[in-house]
């Protein structure tokens, strides 16, 4: 057995992150890990990679017990981890990114790169990819950078590569390509741990799947016909996620938003769509289909080059966030932690940031009474669970954080709210809370553009679904005519 972790427990202060977990890896295996954020899967991987040390429990490598080791030691054992941020150097060349860690491990004081060139080129050839070794890393697209990280691991003779959410920033084709490479390497005896929150990917590429919940290992399952996505989901969440059916609030007589021939170079092209009052319009499409770019253009964050946008039949200006918001748009971004929230600042400041202008009078002087009331009202309305409004928003759970992002926009009553993957990484309770809020507001006439990867989510919430691919809208369907399989087919076309 390549690796065996036995009865691993990890405590941080008073919190138990891992509780007596058993885990093992075979040679030439792809092992998927699933679980919501904070379930302990990342902690276990950090321990295996040497970045953290277990409070108790043992790790065996090649059936030999190893005392807690450092990342450098892990590398010598042949274990490497590729974090989501890839841990590469944007300012160095691709070649250097690959060989530098090898130089470090050799203990040499000087860098003689020529001796590594042949080895690196051979790996690239084996993988059957094209890579300009002399390019500066930050000139490469993210998918290529990912390959650089993998090649670096291989070049360090890594036998077990841990991939932490490797697919989040990749397009469909890039993911397929990555999976192809994983399978090639698997055949050569390299093992992978594959962490992802996209369960379809686990199903597609893994040999075994292990599910974590609240620091416990729920189970390790062989990936055969008997293992369904629903079963994994149930193990992850402790209960099955059911999608409610919502009645449509769409008013087909009143067109709220009309987008025609909207284009932006290198982002999307010739987008035309309509949104009715009270309608929830879903946008399906893989990463890199242009869906987020379209949302950002409507929101004015990265304006389109050409085309017209009409709200209530009047053409509006969306050339800046300010003018878009004036025209009635609001946007809940995909990247909640970087763009949705100011994590270090208080819950109240985050909740009221969009309403400051409305709360202030002459010279921008705030009406403190209204300001405090508004914050409490908003948090109450969305049923956010919090301690004190003055606490940093980072103290809230992901679901409650997302509710605050939505609340800050609802406070200014936008006509159209664009939700970009609003339920990624949040718990079931918060998810259904968000769905309820969407339909409540739709009843009042607000229009929604709902972007998501989760097809069941789209099918249960949207009145119509537009499918995007390669920067274009390829189909618009009524949800009532759709099933998940059908939608899947349309997206894949």
């Amino acid at each position, binding site marked *: 057995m390549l690796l065996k972790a036995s009865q691993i427990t990890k405590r941080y202060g008073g919190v138990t992150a891992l509780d007596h977990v058993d885990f093992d890896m075979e040679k030439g295996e792809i092992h998927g890990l699933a679980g919501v954020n904070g379930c302990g899967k990342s902690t276990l991987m950090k321990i295996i990679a040497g970045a953290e040390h277990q409070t108790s429990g043992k790790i065996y490598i090649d059936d030999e017990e190893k005392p807690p080791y450092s990342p450098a030691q892990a590398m010598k054992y042949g274990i490497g981890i590729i974090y989501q941020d890839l*841990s590469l150097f944007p300012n160095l060349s691709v070649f250097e990114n690959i060989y530098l860690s090898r130089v470090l491990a050799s203990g040499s004081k000087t860098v003689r790169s020529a001796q590594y060139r042949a080895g690196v080129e051979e790996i690239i050839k084996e993988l059957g990819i094209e890579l300009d070794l002399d390019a500066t890393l930050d000139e490469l697209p993210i998918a290529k950078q990912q390959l650089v990280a993998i090649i670096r691991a291989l070049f360090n003779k890594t036998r077990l590569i841990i991939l932490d959410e490797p697919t989040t920033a990749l397009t469909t084709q890039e993911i397929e390509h990555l999976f192809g490479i994983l399978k090639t390497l698997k055949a050569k005896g390299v093992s992978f741990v594959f962490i992802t929150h996209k369960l379809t990917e686990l199903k597609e590429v893994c040999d075994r799947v292990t599910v974590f919940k609240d620091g416990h290992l729920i189970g390790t399952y062989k990936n055969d016909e008997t293992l369904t996505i629903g079963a994994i989901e149930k193990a992850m969440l402790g209960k099955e996620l059911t999608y409610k059916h919502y009645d449509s609030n769409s008013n087909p007589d009143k067109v709220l938003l009309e987008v025609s021939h909207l284009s932006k170079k290198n982002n999307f092209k010739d987008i035309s769509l309509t949104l009715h009052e009270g309608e929830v319009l879903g946008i399906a499409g893989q990463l890199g289909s242009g869906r987020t770019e379209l949302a950002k253009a409507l929101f004015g964050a990265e304006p389109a080059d050409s085309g017209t946008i009409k709200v209530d039949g009047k053409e509006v200006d969306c050339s800046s966030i300010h003018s878009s918001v004036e025209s009635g748009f609001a946007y809940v971004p995909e990247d909640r932690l970087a763009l949705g929230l100011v994590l270090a600042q208080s819950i109240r400041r985050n909740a009221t940031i969009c309403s400051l202008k409305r709360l202030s009078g002459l010279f921008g002087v705030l009406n403190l009474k209204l300001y405090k009331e508004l914050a409490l009202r908003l948090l109450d309305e969305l049923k956010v669970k919090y301690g004190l409004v003055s606490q940093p928003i980072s103290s809230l759970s992901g679901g409650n954080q997302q509710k605050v992002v939505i609340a800050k926009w609802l406070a200014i009553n936008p006509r159209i709210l664009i939700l970009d993957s609003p339920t990624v990484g949040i718990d079931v309770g918060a998810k259904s809370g968000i769905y309820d809020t969407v339909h409540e507001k739709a009843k009042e006439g607000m229009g929604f553009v709902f972007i998501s990867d989760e097809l069941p989510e789209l099918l249960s919430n949207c009145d119509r679904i537009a499918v995007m691919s390669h920067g274009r809208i390829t189909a618009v369907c009524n949800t009532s005519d759709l099933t998940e399989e059908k939608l899947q087919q349309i997206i894949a076309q």
Partner: protein
Amino acid sequence: MLLKFVKSREFFLFMFIVVFSLAITVVNPNFLTVENFADLLKSFTVLGIFSLGVLIVLLSGGFDLSFTAIAQVAQYVVVYFFVEYEVDNVFFAIIATMVIGALLGLVNGVIIYYYHITAIIVTIATNSIYIGFLYVITEGELLYDIPESFSFLSDTKIFPMVNASGAEVGICVGTAFWFLLCILVHLFIKHTVLGRSIVAIGGNQLSASRVGFNICRTTLFIYTFVGAMAGFASLIQCAVFQSVVPNSMVGHEMEVIAAVVLGGASVTGGRGTVLGTFLGVLLFAVLSNGLTLMKISPFFYQIFTGIVILLSVSVNALQDLHRKHSQVRVQVKED
């Protein structure tokens, strides 16, 4: 490859220097003489050596505002004791200034590394500590009695030439040391593990520690190195001016940083070359000399410096914005 060079900051600076030099020569033919150039290089040698230290710090993503104070202390201590004990050996002096500078720089490194505090604040603090104590202890007294051997750095020429009036002209030893250091630092950055780790840390410190670079050793080295460079520069400074004035260099930190930034180094770390830095210093030299030769009031020099800084960083910023704007986000299917 060639295209890349033509588009590079170094090429741009070089062309600018050439064009500007030609313009000055048209106004004043005295500019393009060996004599003037050697003098110019000599008077910018100190700045040039400082800039090598600063380049290393900026490359690593750090910052240092204390190197001038370090230089003042090293210079004063060495000259004072060498005169006191009648040691008249320039090579000992070089070693002594560099060791003192290195130790004072190491103090910065230790505080910055172990207390994870912004380098800017730490080095502003140590700057005032060093200068404050220097003044308190010396009572601000000037030293005019410089050991004779020091003039080896400023007066001895390598490859001397004789000009029309019979005087010896040429590059002085101090300037030659500067050139030598440029080459050494370039080789160091490009070809040693420590040098690469400085660049890597400047690119992404978290990645660097994950990959296994020794952040502690590198950080300590960086600030020690700036200190040592500052010490060495200070010795040349006192050889050139034949005096030790406790406030002759302090306050000019920003000029050095400006020259390095002008040379293409980024204050956020990870980017910068020795050649760029060298050209940055050279451009400053040509500008200041040119303004003098063109009989433009020296009061304008500072204004000019400011404008050059703003312009050069603006060009960088615009390039970055453009690159970001034209990035391909989605492979759009065309008709």
